[in-house]
């Protein structure tokens, strides 16, 4: 790889002190370090040997963990299109995948380009290195938007999220909210008609949908059960499955062959990602398990109360529909915006699960509670940590006075 090194060595003088592009050094550095782990050595006092892990490898692990969701999302985008237009039998698996990829890939590219551009600008202005944090955010954003989203909205939301969700606080490591969810929340409140309802989840590409098809998500059918009486959610889903092309059986919802945001429909793919995050220790098992536990407990409790039909829905439906699993595995576990203490993580995760289900079953206007639950607990995470750490301080104080 010497020739690659030579290229960098040739270009480098332009970016270092006195060079033509001196102020763009962070950009050069970000690209160089993508190819080479630099020759930095440990300082002369302290730990002279260092762990092989670094921020890039850690973030890369998360990105790889999302690949199953991304690939499935591409296929599902194409598959849903053919289902809706009634050409499912005529299309091939590869054809479905390629069609979906044609819609999803531009979203990924726009998200990364817009976000990294902002990161570079801030790195140049602030004279610090470009942080790897956006590698994850840039992949998360395409996975949590509908496939029909106009690309300019992706760009606007990404820029909004990186600037106001992260950089104003000082960059990666200092943000309070999860940047990807900030983008999602921005889109939801700024362009609600493009982000909710029955039309945004499947790309029809101008073709006419078949009879009996509705682009509604499983959550939307659930939400119908909040306001209207006698609309048993499970019966309703069965009826829709029978009359239209989309199957809403628990198995299909688990596999993810239903309409929804690009990467969140398949609980199976999310679990594959979760397995990778847990096996590598990059994602917090405390947060993941406690989110699912909180959701299950609250689902059961609501089922017990049963004040509306959405509450009557079997509790495990909550865990496989909408963005619950995706949020639990990839969003709630963001180490910066989550609670930092081990005990705090358990409380934080549990409360996310509880809030997500609570928002879903009590609020017909807003079926997806996961995004709100995570953002809400992001805000409360420092408070949770505060009390956990206070307990430690009290223990220490008590020991001193005994």
């Amino acid at each position: 790889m010497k020739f690659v090194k030579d290229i960098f060595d040739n270009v480098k003088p332009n970016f270092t002190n006195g060079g033509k592009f001196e102020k763009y050094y962070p950009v050069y550095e970000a690209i160089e370090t993508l190819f080479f782990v630099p020759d930095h050595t440990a300082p002369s006092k302290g730990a002279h040997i260092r762990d092989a892990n670094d921020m890039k490898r850690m973030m890369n692990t998360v990105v790889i963990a999302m690949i199953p969701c991304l690939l499935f999302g591409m296929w599902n985008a194409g598959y849903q299109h053919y289902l809706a237009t009634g050409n499912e039998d005529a299309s091939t698996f590869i054809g479905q995948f390629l069609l979906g990829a044609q819609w999803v890939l531009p979203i990924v590219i726009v998200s990364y380009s817009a976000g990294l551009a902002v990161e570079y600008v801030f790195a140049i202005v602030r004279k610090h290195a470009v942080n790897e944090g956006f590698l994850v955010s840039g992949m998360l954003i395409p996975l949590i938007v509908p496939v029909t989203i106009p690309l300019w909205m992706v760009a606007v939301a990404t820029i909004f999220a990186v600037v106001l969700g992260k950089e104003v606080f000082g960059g990666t490591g200092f943000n309070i909210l999860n940047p990807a969810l900030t983008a999602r929340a921005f889109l939801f409140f700024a362009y609600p008609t493009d982000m909710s309802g029955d039309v945004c989840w499947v790309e029809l590409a101008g073709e006419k949908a078949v009879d009996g098809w509705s682009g509604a998500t499983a959550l939307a059918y659930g939400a119908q059960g909040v306001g209207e009486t006698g609309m048993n959610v499970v019966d309703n889903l069965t009826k829709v499955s029978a009359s239209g092309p989309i199957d809403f059986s628990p198995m299909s919802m688990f596999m993810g062959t239903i309409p929804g945001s690009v990467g969140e429909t398949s609980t199976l793919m999310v679990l594959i990602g979760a397995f990778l995050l847990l096996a590598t220790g990059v994602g917090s098992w405390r947060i993941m398990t406690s989110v699912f536990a909180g959701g299950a407990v609250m689902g059961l409790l609501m089922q017990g109360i049963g004040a509306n039909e959405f509450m009557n829905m079997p509790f495990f439906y909550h865990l496989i529909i909408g963005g619950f699993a995706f949020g639990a595995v990839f969003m709630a576990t963001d180490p910066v915006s989550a609670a930092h203490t081990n005990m705090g993580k358990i409380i934080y995760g549990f409360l996310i699960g509880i809030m997500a289900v609570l928002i879903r079953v009590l609020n017909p206007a807003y079926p997806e509670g996961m995004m709100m639950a995570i953002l809400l607990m992001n805000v409360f995470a420092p408070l949770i940590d505060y009390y956990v750490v206070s307990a430690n301080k009290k223990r220490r104080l008590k020991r001193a006075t005994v």
Partner: protein
Amino acid sequence: MSKQIKIKKGFDINLKGKAEKNIGDFARAEYFAIKPSDFIHVSRPKLEVAVGDKVQAGDVVFFDKLQDSVKYLAPVSGEVTDIVRGAKRRLLEVKIKADAEDSYKEFKKYTAQEVGGISKEDAIKEMCDGGVWPHIIQRPYAVVASPEDSPKAIYISACDTAPLACDPGFALKDDVENFKAGISILKKLTSGKVHINIHTDAEVAPVFEQNAGVQVNKFSGPHPAGNVGIQIHHIDPINKGDVVWTVSPFGVAQIGKLFLEGKYDPTKIIAIAGGSVAKPKYAKVKAGTQVTNLLANNLNEDNVRVISGNVLTGERISNDGYLGFYNNELTVIKEGNEAEFFGWVLPTTKKLSFHRALGLMSFLNPKKEYDLNTNLKGELRAFVQTGAFEKVLPMDIYPSHLLKAILAKDYEEMEALGIYEVAEEDFALCEFIDVSKNEIQDIIREGIELLRQG
């Protein structure tokens, strides 16, 4: 009451180049140096020698104006050849060209029986004059103790779990009597107990067994189980206002030797270890020795880093530098000043990691010996990962909260979060595993100094 304590958190770093347990034959160094920077708290050293002066082993080289009873002595006899100063005329090194044979300044000599009868005041005075007082370290702050203090207890860690560490049992095998006398002196200095902490993995060396009137505590588990700070935390944690003292086993033997032999003779057995050392083994040297003769024809390669101390806490010295006062290892490893193509993404079995992020295979083979270099293996970043430091710091302390309190210079918060209980060496593993590559030990020392000088 003896205690059995099981340390669960931590990480053993298994490195190549462990010192073979025999003492090599190395020519005595020509030069020796005493470095005031080895003693963190010495802020205003007063030199007692000038270039050209002849000194005996045991003559005063300098003392700290703020703690003038504690003397720092010449390890060998010879001629002062150089006084090295750094920025702002800070005193860095006093170099002595050693005589072929040392002549010693005489201190009062006692028999083993007489040692028990020495009064506390006399013992302290002898130790301060006799150059062995700096072996007594106080907690909080981990600096040389003040002779006026009366510690709650004295702790001796008789095990070193750091990578490539010198085995204190082996190094002190001929110092049984010195060690005993040292313990007998230390017992006079505290109203509380003298604790000797041993590790269950190692065979207990005779030198640590036959000491009357001490409490022997048994620790098990990975590094940092051998760190005295971790041990104190589990035996009787330090609270605000407490003062306890710690002494290394070598320091105890040095104290005993001063009383039994009536001379300052900082001869010690050190380990010469590390992946770049051709024949890693032990050596008998005096504190402050130039390392040239120890490394001559003993290195596998040229691009190396010589470290006085171990790889986690030591200090880089040049190839003809000098061994630090407190260090019992001379470690040499590869300098990692080379960029690595796709080093952050390619799978690797050659590099050690506490983590298991994608491509890091070392967790599959925990018994393997690694030959690590000094590369940072990443770039400096803000703190992002959470929950990792906790896994290698076996204390009831929130490490990242403490670090952030220090960075914010929040005195009350530092105190409340337990800064009195820690020393930088306890955070060495945090520094090793940190994916953000921060200088954690430096931050901890900065916090300690803020409070100490506060």
